[in-house]
């Protein structure tokens, strides 16, 4: 079971290539927001960047909050997503303690599924897909 980890964010230049790759390859759209990883400037560009993404909780509060089973606990941490079951209630986004789930204007949630599609598009190796420990 692999986890996406933003382990070297101090190298980040804020190009958003990871978010755009996630939106493009996983969610089939062009977006900053409709992505499982999102980059924010931490207090303006002058102080660097942070990544918002799933921190592989186990148990995951978002899965617990999901009333339909659209998000389910993933073995080893994080969640799996079945978009067809989503009713856009927003409970998952509200339950995430680190604001890692974004909702688009229709209320659809976007959460990292740890597929690693973004990794090769980071020009500075800020991201890695790492085998879960234990």
């Amino acid at each position, binding site marked *: 079971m692999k986890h996406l980890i933003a382990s070297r964010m101090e190298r980040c*230049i*804020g*190009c*958003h*290539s990871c978010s*755009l790759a996630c*939106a*493009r*390859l996983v969610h*089939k*759209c*062009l*977006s*900053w*927001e*409709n992505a499982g990883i*999102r*980059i*924010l*400037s931490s*207090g*303006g*560009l*002058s102080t*660097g*960047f942070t990544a918002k993404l799933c921190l592989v909780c186990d148990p995951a509060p978002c899965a617990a909050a999901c009333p339909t089973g659209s998000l389910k606990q993933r073995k080893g941490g994080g969640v799996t997503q079945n978009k067809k079951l989503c009713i856009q209630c927003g409970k998952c986004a509200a339950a995430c303690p680190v604001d890692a789930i974004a909702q*688009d*204007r229709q209320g659809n949630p976007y959460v990292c599924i740890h597929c690693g599609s973004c990794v090769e*598009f980071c*020009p*500075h190796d800020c991201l890695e897909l790492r085998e879960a420990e234990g």
Partner: protein
Amino acid sequence: MITENFRVLEVNLSTGRSAIRNVPGVETVLGGSGLAAKLHMEYSRPGLAWDDPSQPLVFAIGPLTGFFPLMSKTVCAFTSPLHGQYAESHAGARSALALRFAGIDALVIIGRSERPTVLHLGANVIEFMEAGYLWGKDALTTGKLLRRILKGSGHRTIMRIGPAGENKSAMACINVDTYRHFGRLGGGGVMGAKNLKAVAVEGNGSCDLPPGKEYSALFADIFRKLTDTDMMRKYHNLGTASNLEALNELKALPWRNLQATSDPGIGGITGERFADDTLLRNAACSGCPVGCIHIGFVREKFHKDNQYLYRQVGYDYEPIFATGSMLGLTHAPEVLTVMDEVEKAGLDVMSGGVALAWATEALEKGVVTQEQTGIDLRFGDAQGYMRAVHMLGGAVNDFWRTLAGGTMAAAARYGGGDFACVLGQEMAGYATGEVFYVAQGLGLRHSHLDTGAYTYDQSKAPKDVDKALTFLLEDERERVILTSMVACLFARKVYDPETLRQCLTVLGGQALADGLDEAAARIQKLRWQARASGGYDPMNVRIPKRFLEVETWKGRTDPQYLEELRLAYAGAIREMCGPEN
């Protein structure tokens, strides 16, 4: 995806009303530069002053914006406070993608707000925020405050002005997300005239992509060319600052108001020096993996008990030329400090630096007096320049108010036109020779980016007017395509015409791809017509005497070649300014 019409948001600051317009012409003007010129021609009122409320301020993106790497720039168009005619200025940061994700191809702002205002936009928001409390704030403080006030951190752009813009200076820039700028020709002054302190755009929408794998494969191919080859190494390594040493070596770097073109003091301001001593980190425009933005660090002791403040300042070749060699400053931290003050004042760094260089020589020569300037300026004195920057931005007295209207305007009033380093506007940092002087002097944006004339000067091309003219016209036409997409010009080797055609085609724009050459010629002409509608006559442009005195690695400027090329280029521009046959 390529659409049939442009989606244009028109905001009227006088009435507080907005409209979404479907504007035809995607196949004829493409977007970016072409769209900006088209919209400016439609909205502008050539008979009225540049600061008349009806004059438009346009921000336009292109058909490839966000869809491919380095398609990351926005074109800003307006009637310039410097010359009262059509002007274009380009910037990146997050501006282009924010507009894309706000769902518009262009934003047209007309009217004038009664009170200072911030325009806040997004895919589902258009609102005006009272901004009286921001008026008078510098451009960096304004950004900090608005970041706190508005939501959408990281996924928005904040385009704002400093005091220079509020004072309607012809040298006022629009600061974009702290480290990028719509720098030249006074766009900041246009915002000031509209009582518009900032435009904040949330990129909170999304766009469809073509089905199938072809698009993603093409994206990945281009991305790899940009990141896995040495093509872009220059830009993320030392950055454009690497040019300082090279141009100084060639005797083509302007020093002390272009009184020299080379100086042993270069060692303190080379790209290596900035990288080794000051480079804190790099940053990128959104959608660009190159990361050419170089942020330098300088600390300053403000109390004897080891109390320091620090500044983080974006640097590049042009800002170092303008606040370094041009002002005789040869210590990188001092250059960054002056640059930081320029940022706060909201001045275009090139125009501001060159204007201060002229003021210094004017004081030296007694053309103006210290009573008039209110300050003594000396080449190499950073403290004086730190203060003078704010006198210029603040237009604090008659002298500085006049200079804020452009160095040539000040020279017209006080004298000193012979040594005003003005080529249409204050010069960019290339004392490379006749082709560059003519290109910037007469060029549409009076920018070193209209064409690669400074590179042409450095080639082994013979002094042949016809060849130089052909280069200027063809290079402009090639760049017009890129600035209509809107690509960063650093990517011009990656985005050759064939690659651009592939990009357009995969997004459903086969017709645009097929008609690219015709569109290039059309847009080139359209921009000149936009300029001409404001009364531009290239024949009236003169190259100041200082440029004839320049001595480079090739020797002294050849006045005959310069004049013949000036006349030839002016003639060609006049032809393009004319109506369609």
